[in-house]
Structures are given as structure tokens and as C-alpha cells.
């Protein structure tokens, strides 16, 4: 009986709201927001799941906020293009790698568990630089050329 309860608890934790490939969830979606996944363009309502390699694209009236599996939070403002180039996170060891790429627009972020475990495991690339995150809250802008 005791083992059954442990098994139930383990299953409950092993199957959270995220499926295996999902790296984050859209928690805020205002105005025009799309997810580019390969050749597909998908809507990005609240609750949409994100995968590594997805690109978030917002229009002039758009903004979006995402919670990643390591509890890092990222938002993008209007007229922004943000690609999740790489994302992995081990919820047991808290080791991981997060490489975001802000091609244009504005981004705000609060780093999560992986940066707490390993500073600079989260990086933001821009057209002219690469930024390492040691924690915690920061903003980045890539203005129109």
C-alpha cells in the first residue's frame, strides 16, 4: 500500500503539464503573436506549448510572456522576433542550456533554476553581441536598422 502511494506520487510528478518536448508555455499573449515552427506558422494563445527551435514573432500591437520549465520567464514586446535556438533542462540536477536569439525588438527576462545552478548557462544572442546571464532580471533591445 505504501509503495502504491509512492508510485502514485512519483507518477504525478513525472507527468507534469509539460510533454517531453515542450520547453515552455505561453502565459501572456496580447495582440498579434505567432509561433514559427519550421515552415509552419502557428497561433500563440495563452496555454500554447513551445519547443526548442521555435521562433516567437509579434506584430506592432503584440506582446507575449513565456514560462520555461526551469522557471525562467521571458517576455517579448511589439515588433519582435525571438528564437529559442537551444533549450534543455534536467529537473533533477538543474543542469541545462538556454540560448535565445533576439533578432529584433525588445525582450525582458528573469532567469530561472539553470542559471542559479550554472551561471551563464542562459545566453541571449543579438545581431551584434552575445550576452551571458548570471541572474536575474534584465532587458535587451535590438532597434530597427
Amino acid at each position: 500500500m505504501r509503495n502504491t502511494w509512492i508510485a502514485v506520487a512519483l507518477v504525478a510528478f513525472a507527468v507534469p503539464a509539460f510533454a517531453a518536448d515542450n520547453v515552455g508555455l505561453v502565459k501572456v499573449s496580447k495582440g498579434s503573436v505567432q509561433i514559427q515552427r519550421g515552415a509552419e506558422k502557428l497561433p500563440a494563445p495563452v496555454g500554447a506549448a513551445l519547443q526548442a527551435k521555435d521562433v516567437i514573432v509579434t506584430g506592432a500591437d503584440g506582446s507575449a510572456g513565456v514560462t520555461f520549465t526551469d522557471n525562467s520567464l521571458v517576455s517579448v514586446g511589439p515588433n519582435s522576433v525571438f528564437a529559442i535556438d537551444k533549450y534543455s533542462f534536467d529537473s533533477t540536477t538543474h543542469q541545462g542550456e538556454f540560448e535565445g536569439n533576439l533578432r529584433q525588438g525588445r525582450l525582458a527576462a528573469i532567469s530561472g533554476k539553470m542559471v542559479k545552478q550554472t551561471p551563464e548557462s542562459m545566453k541571449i544572442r543579438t545581431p551584434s553581441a552575445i550576452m551571458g546571464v548570471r541572474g536575474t532580471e534584465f532587458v535587451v533591445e535590438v532597434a530597427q536598422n
Partner: protein
Amino acid sequence: MKFLALVLVAGLAAACASTPRHVAPETFAVVPGAGGHVGTIVVHPEGGHEHVIHEAYGAERIKADGTVEDGKLTEAQVKADFGATLAALPGRPATFTLYFLEGKDELTPDSKVEMDKVIAELRRRPLPDIVVIGHSDSVGGLSYNDKLSLARAERMREMMIGMGIPAERIQAAGRGKRELLVPTEDNVSEARNRRVEINVR
């Protein structure tokens, strides 16, 4: 004024040293967190030197001609430029702890009041992921406490569903007396161990 002078010097030096190019201007800045915590970022401009920023509103700019300047933004500038972006940040993950009467799945009077705050917080989040973990003190056997702690978690889950939180967003689990908040010998009544943790993401 000092900053302006530094910028001018840096700008002149960079202008003399490198051939002109045209890039999209970029800004990187540290923003103080909710509790006043100030973090650290490290900016490596392409072909330039790495710069560590660890003061509130400390910033680095890459200008259209490719030169780099370091300085500070004001809170007002950050609000003006990043207001809509910061407003879209999801709520931070939060943890609440509520306490129970001995041997029951009924909240203490104080925790009943606290529960109203938890519900208000949950309602502010458009799509909460909630994990409720029940615990007990060390009075009684393992199996009894596993059931009691799960009953406490389930009771909270049902209360949240009753308040309009969608059932599929809430998971409940019981940890029995396996994770005492206050370590005690076995069979010790301890109010601080009779609790549920509500983790919200």
C-alpha cells in the same frame, strides 16, 4: 556629466580605431528584481571586449556605427522603452504554506484567512500550473499519515476547484511524515509540520 564625457572619449577612440559600419542599435540593461535584488549580465559585443554589468539599470549600448558605450539608464527610460515588454512577463513562481488542525484535513483559522490570499493570487494568473503537496506531523504510522497528507492536499485542490480554478491545472500529492518542516522524534505533535505547500507557476 561624467558619463557623457566617458561616452565621448569611448566614442572617439572607437571611431578612430575601427572602420565605420552600420548595425541595428542594441541596448542591454540590468533591471532590479521585485525584492530589490540586482543581478549580473555579461555582454560580449562582436569583436569587442566583454563587459560585466551588475548595478541597477546599468547598461551597455551598441550604436548604429558599431561603437559600444557603457552607462546607466534611468528607471523612467526603462519604463518608457520596455513598459509593454515588462508588462508581458508572466507572474513569478510562488509557494504558499497553509497549516491544519491536528489529525484533520481542516485548515487552522489563520490559514483559512491566508487561503483567500492564495485564491486571489491564483486568479491573477491566466493559466496557473498548481502543485499541492500535503504533509503531516509524526503522530501515527506511515500509511495513516500518507493518507492524511493526501486528504489535506485533495481538500485544498477541491477548494480551489470550487473557487473556479480549472481542475486539470491542479495536481495533488501527499508526502506523509517523510518531509517534516521541523524535524522531530516519531509521534510528536507539531503544528508547523501539519501543512500543505501550494506551488504555483
